[in-house]
């Protein structure tokens, strides 16, 4: 870990300004991912701006019947929130499918959105990785890729977004609220928040330097069965091989997003009209442009069958 300086500003705008004006600065919230990455020198910030004390830790109803979740609300608290449990079951289930109890106690809403890939080559600093070291190449393309992306990847990167929460937020059409160093706020639809790797995989999101997430807003609840189905090699404490976040009616109509398959939560709204026709009709469209490796082609079958399971569950 490289030495770093540290400060605790008192407002979100000050925090954003502090990161904006300090070279190689980063925000720190729960630290559940950043600290690991700093120990391995995958992240080497010279300055940390602690956003834990900014009062961004409340969950409040919005005027249009939705919910505004502060950036610093802990995963445990969010999953247990009565409104989330009542109206946004897919989100509560996704949160509880992630990490461990200890990590969820510490991890925050904004930090969860920003967690970095678990590609083994990203984690081994002796290996080529365009995400960690732009221009060094991608060892994963012809390496161990069983966990990696089947769609939306590029010749530069086939990493996956490892999170569960973001997949639920994608199907909920959440909006990310931010503030920048001069105090200007903006909102980013969750669909446009995470990026595909393209030729610049070092950038996971469309946040600008110094831009701070202040909240995530959920629109008013969508009726239907809220399902988060995470498929993994062991029963707990593992990243998704494939996950399905879905809100479905008995006739199958509804919405679905997939996790564990791409550099971002993967959703193709145009395909959702075919949900009543069954899983295959949907996944054929959702994964039409898939380019799996020989090690991860199973994810296509798995995604279809897992969606099928969700549709069955909604019918009951």
């Amino acid at each position: 870990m490289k030495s770093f300086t540290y400060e605790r500003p008192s407002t979100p705008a000050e925090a954003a300004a502090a990161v904006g004006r300090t070279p190689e600065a980063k925000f720190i919230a729960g630290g559940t991912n950043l600290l690991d990455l700093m120990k391995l020198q995958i992240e080497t910030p010279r300055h940390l701006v602690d956003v834990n004390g900014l009062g961004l830790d409340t969950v409040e109803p919005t005027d249009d019947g939705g919910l505004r979740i502060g950036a610093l609300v802990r995963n445990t608290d969010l999953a247990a929130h009565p409104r989330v449990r009542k109206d946004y079951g897919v989100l509560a289930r996704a949160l509880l499918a992630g990490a461990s109890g200890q990590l969820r106690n510490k991890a925050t809403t904004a930090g969860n959105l920003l967690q970095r890939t678990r590609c083994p080559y990203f984690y081994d600093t002796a290996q080529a990785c365009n995400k960690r070291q732009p221009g060094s190449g991608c060892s994963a393309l012809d390496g161990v890729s069983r966990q990696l992306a089947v769609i939306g990847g590029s010749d530069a990167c086939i990493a996956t977004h490892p999170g569960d929460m973001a997949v639920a937020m994608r199907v909920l059409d959440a909006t990310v609220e931010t503030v920048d160093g001069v105090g200007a706020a903006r909102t980013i639809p969750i669909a446009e928040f995470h990026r595909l790797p393209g030729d610049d995989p070092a950038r996971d999101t469309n946040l600008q330097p110094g831009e701070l997430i202040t909240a995530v807003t959920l629109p008013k609840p969508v009726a239907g069965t809220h399902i988060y189905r995470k498929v993994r090699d062991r029963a707990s404490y593992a990243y998704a091989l494939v996950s399905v976040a879905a809100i479905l009616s008995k006739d199958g109509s509804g919405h679905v997003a997939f996790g564990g398959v791409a550099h971002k939560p993967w959703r193709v709204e145009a395909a959702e009209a075919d949900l009543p026709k069954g899983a295959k009709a949907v996944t054929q469209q959702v994964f039409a442009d898939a380019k799996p490796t020989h090690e991860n082609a199973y994810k296509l079958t798995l995604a279809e069958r897992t969606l099928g399971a969700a549709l069955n569950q909604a019918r009951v």
Partner: protein
Amino acid sequence: MKFDTAAGPNPIDRLKVVGKPTDRIDGKFKTTGTAPYAYERHDVAPDAAYGYVLGSSIAKGRVRSIDTALARQAPGVIGVVTTLDTPRIERGVMNVAYLFGGDVIQHYHQAIAVVVAETFEQARAASFLVKVDYAPEDGKFDLATEAKTAEPVPADSGEGSGGNGEERIGDFEGAFAQAPVTLDATYRTADESHAMMEPHATVAAWAGDRVTLWTSNQMIGWGHGSLAKMLDLPKEKVRLDAPYVGGGFGGKLFVRADAVLAALAAKATGRPVKVALTRPLIANNTTHRPATIQRVRIGATQDGTITAIAHESTSGNLPDGGPETAVNQTKYLYAGQNRLTAMKLARLDLPEGNAMRAPGEAPGLAVLEVAMDEMAEKLGLDPVAFRIRNDTQVVPTEPDLRFSHRDLVGCLKLGAEKFGWAKRNPKPGQVRDGQWLVGLGMAAAFRDNMVMKSGARVRLGGDGTVTVETDMTDIGTGSYTIIAQTAAEMMGVPLEKVVVRLGDSDFPVSSGSGGQFGANSSTAGVYAACVKLRESIAQKLGFNATDAVFEDGEVRAGNRAIPLAQAASDGELVAEDSIEFGKFSKTQQVSTFGAHFVEVGVDVDTAEVRVRRMLAVCAAGRILNPKSARSQVIGGMVMGTGAALMEELAVDTKRGFFANHDLAGYEVPVHADIPHQEVIFLDETDPMSSPMKAKGVGELGISGIAAAVANAVYNATGIRVREYPITLDKLIDRMPDAA
């Protein structure tokens, strides 16, 4: 004491202390964080500096140069020792790869430097400033490719293996060709990591020309001799101390880079230095269980009598490395007139393959016992009945060699009864419970029972305290407790009057912990020392040693009874002895047996496999402590479940390393994966094993369990996966259409 005749009645048979499910006497230290593990030995080296190991980033080649200038200038740095600063260091006992010194890189993450600083963080940060110039070379990294040109294994070359690499009895090919029912199938097992909780760690401190290493090691005797050789010192100048070891599983049978680098760095810097291998280094810097490709052929008559059986295994290793002895148990487990076992070894440039819990039997039974399941189905026989039909009381390859005590059939029958095996539907894919396809599977368990010479010293103090000293280790197994139970039983004192000191090379050399020989061998060594102490006590108190009864803190004979402590009233009495196992112990085959029964659920949509119930029945001689023995067996069952369902070091065959080198990437079972586990020990003794009449259980629990899981998956789904681990990607394309 020589063990040269079957054990007769002796004081252990009283079972006043031995055989009781005593809590671990070290448990309170572990649960309160006061058990001193190597890296936390602040008591012995409060001023220790921190060493951080830098691993090679190439898998094969040479180091041209190492530039440490920037690292040496980094904050807090005290010194840097590189592999180019020292000639290649001799290897210790069982080492295959060289651990340090010279410019040759044999494998990825081979240690090439240790950076020493005032804090761990400073040492780690400075390690990133070390610039290394490599001359990489092409290597061989893919077992499947290299297996085609693998060489036959010439001779006995692995723990637990007997005889030559190839062994033939009768005419296998002829009998197989004539058998009316045959199976010929090929299977694969994966490279696996020990993934023990405590990483390899050492604190080293020099005092003049004498060095002490507080370390984490299963075999102090081996380590002591090895380090003396590696550091070019006489043995009396080297001391090892490992009173607590946080898991080993074979990964700490031998000296590893942490110990060597701590000693070198401490010498170079003039400071005590502590070194722990980081989690990412453990996969590629240390050892692993090698992957195998195994072919099994079985021929039988229509009634299920095996007439021909062949088991061949190919594995890979570095030069001078041995094979995974996966065919070993096939020589012992089932009858059959015509037999072939053979091993081949491919040269690989992956990290060193070496012993991991039940080397040979764990991957060997994972395959043989699936083949038996497949064969039973072909014969239309129940898998339990098929195994019973082919039981043997003599070693099939040496019909004159009897098993000392073999109750495999008892294990199979009791297990079937207790598990409700009769309710299993032999037709696969028939049982559904909601979302789950449910299946039952079973397998036989077998593990050789090795014995090792083991010594101990026993002291009787004036207050009646009995102190045992031996370099035996407790790697989480319960050694402290069973040794205390043994001494208490022998000396006729309550457990609280016994103090056990372990893991110090200044103590008598013991068996150490490995190959499930530790419990039986080390307690037998304590037994021997206690017999000697009883003799000197009897003499001191004026008793005839053969008549004296040691009981309730007294020595009694006839109508005389004298408090034990009185014998030491004018000074401590000390006795030392070893148990030695000679040719006699080879006159019968001493082995351990068991039967595993498993119920799994396979998700009908996603093909996720989850274990629902497990039962092991074990026949392993006298059980010294049913609580710690059960703990060993269920631990083995968990580990074998990992091997069956998830554990695999993922080989990057292009770059030559295990890519998933942390505990996020290398998945082992978590609590949620393991249901209630039942263990039943048959009530038996084996007088051919030692005066304790006990055998090992530390590896029996892992032997066979993977096959039981695999057979249950087949029974649930009708899909036979012959490549471990059985992850959902190997099932999903063949799963029935989801309803």
